[in-house]
């Protein structure tokens, strides 16, 4: 896999816009307004299936942006309910597949997608979701085939964005950069969410590659576009800490560690505070550990990866880390999952 030449050849008009989007706070206010409206409809039991699927997507989007696991859980419950109410509706199954994939229940999600396909649900949407799952479990070639096909049929923001993240995960940064650019240039809209998500993924790619200045630049772009974007802020703090700017990293992380129900922020904060403020580090570590335990119990597939990383690092429990790392490798055979197992094995010796 080098480049997706077919998709590149399918390139059409490119707009050199200035990527202006709705101010982030305003967009979040409107996202909340949309969710409030949909919740009101849903509470009255009068949203049709496509309305419920839209509602679920909005809740999951807010969960991602604000780093709110409770929103993901709510989205999953809503998705289970919509399938329960309309078991033979492909749109409902697609919505549940997305929710299940979020919690790394990939086999269940693929089963839903198979059913959705048999029900003749929009094949483009089903294939896109299937490819995202293939990518998540490390079956990159299968994901690549679907993404290329989509990009050749419609070279747009979404198709190039998907390709970019796949290249990024494979470490093919040159191809990824081209696709990130292609995707960004094709964005037609003012919602900051899609662009901020793309910029965030680009920043994460450069963290993985160890190019921290480039990572910081993209993460800062995403964060400027969407100031409430918790994962961007969290990773920005990670980069700043690695670059020696621990004060800024702590300032960024502290509010997230307090407000978010995702233990990653408390874990990161604990990691930075070790050697600086041992008492605070212990407190944040304890908070993160308790939360990981809680989440592992409820969503073992989804949190074994991050819990293992935490236990290897500030959690100081390499044996449990190894168990979680192996469990993670069971569901997703990605380079990161293999690396995590190797690190845990070394530490456990």
């Amino acid at each position: 896999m080098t480049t997706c030449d077919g998709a590149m050849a399918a390139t059409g008009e490119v707009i050199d816009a200035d990527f202006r989007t709705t101010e982030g706070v305003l967009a979040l206010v409107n996202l909340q307004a949309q969710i409030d409206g949909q919740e009101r409809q849903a509470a009255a039991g009068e949203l049709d299936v496509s309305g419920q699927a839209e509602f679920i997507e909005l809740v999951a989007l807010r969960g991602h942006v604000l780093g709110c696991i409770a929103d993901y859980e709510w989205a999953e419950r809503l998705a289970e309910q919509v399938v329960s109410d309309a078991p033979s509706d492909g749109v409902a199954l697609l919505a549940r597949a997305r929710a299940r994939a979020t919690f790394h229940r990939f086999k269940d999600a693929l089963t839903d997608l198979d059913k959705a396909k048999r029900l003749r649900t929009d094949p483009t949407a089903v294939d896109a979701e299937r490819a995202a799952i293939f990518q998540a479990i490390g079956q990159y070639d299968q994901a690549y085939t679907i993404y290329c096909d989509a990009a050749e049929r419609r070279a747009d923001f979404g198709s190039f964005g998907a390709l970019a993240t796949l290249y990024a995960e494979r470490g093919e940064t040159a191809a990824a950069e081209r696709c990130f650019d292609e995707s960004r240039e094709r964005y037609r809209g003012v919602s900051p969410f899609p662009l901020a998500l793309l910029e965030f993924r680009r920043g994460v790619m450069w963290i993985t590659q160890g190019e921290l200045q480039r990572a910081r630049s993209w993460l800062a772009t995403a964060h400027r576009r969407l100031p409430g974007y918790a994962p961007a802020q969290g990773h920005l703090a990670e980069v700043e800490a690695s670059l020696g700017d621990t004060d800024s990293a702590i300032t960024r992380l502290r509010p997230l560690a307090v407000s978010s129900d995702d233990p990653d922020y408390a874990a990161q904060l604990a990691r930075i505070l070790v050697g600086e403020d041992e008492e605070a580090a212990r407190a944040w570590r304890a908070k993160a550990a308790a939360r990981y335990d809680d989440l592992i119990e409820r969503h073992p597939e989804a949190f074994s990866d991050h819990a293992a990383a935490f236990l290897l690092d500030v959690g100081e429990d390499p044996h449990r880390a190894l168990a979680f790392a192996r469990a993670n490798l069971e569901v997703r055979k990605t380079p990161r999952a293999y690396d995590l197992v190797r690190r845990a094995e070394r530490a456990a010796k």
Partner: protein
Amino acid sequence: MSDHNSGPRALADPVVDITDVYVFPSPEQPDSLVLVLDVFPSAEPTALFSDAVDYRFRVRPVKISREATAAFAVSETEYAISCRFAVPVERQRGGPLVQEGTCTASTGQTVGFRVNDEQGGKARGLRVFAGRRMDPFFFDGVRAAKTVMTGQLAFVPVGDSRQFRQNVLSIVVEVDIATVFGADAGPLFAVVGETAIAGSITVRLERYGRPLIKSVVLGAKHLDTVNRDLDIRDLYNQEDAFKLGTTYLGAYRARMNANLPFWDSLDKKTDWPPDAHGNHPLTELLLADFMVVDASKPYAGDSYLEIERALLKGTKHETCGGRTPNDDIADTFLTMLVNAGNGPRISDGVDGQAVRASRAFPYLAPPELNPPAKIQLSLDKPA
């Protein structure tokens, strides 16, 4: 809200999702034109306009064409009325967000206003309101969809409108024609509403001419043998209504020529025989997707498509045309499509919104403070 969910992007971002456009001579101010653009379906109290969007009306003088290929001769002269919004601010700690806006005419007039201020802003020749209002649109879209699925008129005597007591974000601009457009402008104008990115390079996101074109006329794909898999509405949205590009013109034409005969067939007789090339007689008229209003005529509550219908008959129009908020445009349009006015009026069973628009600025009814859940009937539910 006739254009809700007109394309994949519009679904994703309600601040650019134009639900409706209205244009009518002012019932209050002589020689003034009222332009209305609605966005944000089912807008909750906290919904706000985007600071990155240019909400605009494009107005061009137009004449009845003497050419056989076009219904209207559209002038190259264009008047643009553009509304932009600032990032909202909290005037008091913990208080509601306050959003200010500015409306600018291409002829230089500018007026500032505050969102949700009933009085709006007023300057020479322009009066502007922006804020949450009750969505004036009404239409039994579910049974229209059932009609498409079953091939049978599925409307019932008492229909249901999903927009019943729902709210939208509205922009209402009252324009003194002589002051803003010039003493010689008009009296016939073509009007389009648009949302565009307010950047250094303006990118059109949505456009809106006549109601129900994108949903009723372009929406169904299964009859289109040329582009059965293509949702052309996103492409259509990005076109200049006054000058369609050639790239996809064939696709739009094919879609209309496929779908318009379907509606004509619903009463089991052909009122719109196609020409030798299979073109439906309404295709070119509807491809010129803008509303036409005669500002020299008085406000009339039920004048939608009257100018076009007179044109098709070869007679002079008698009303202002355009579109007023209370007008039952769905019945008018369905009747035109199904029987060309040669049969009984086709009704969708919904004759108005819960609260009618008024004849006083800002015309649209205040927002419903406790909107009901949307009425979304299952297609399986017996009619």
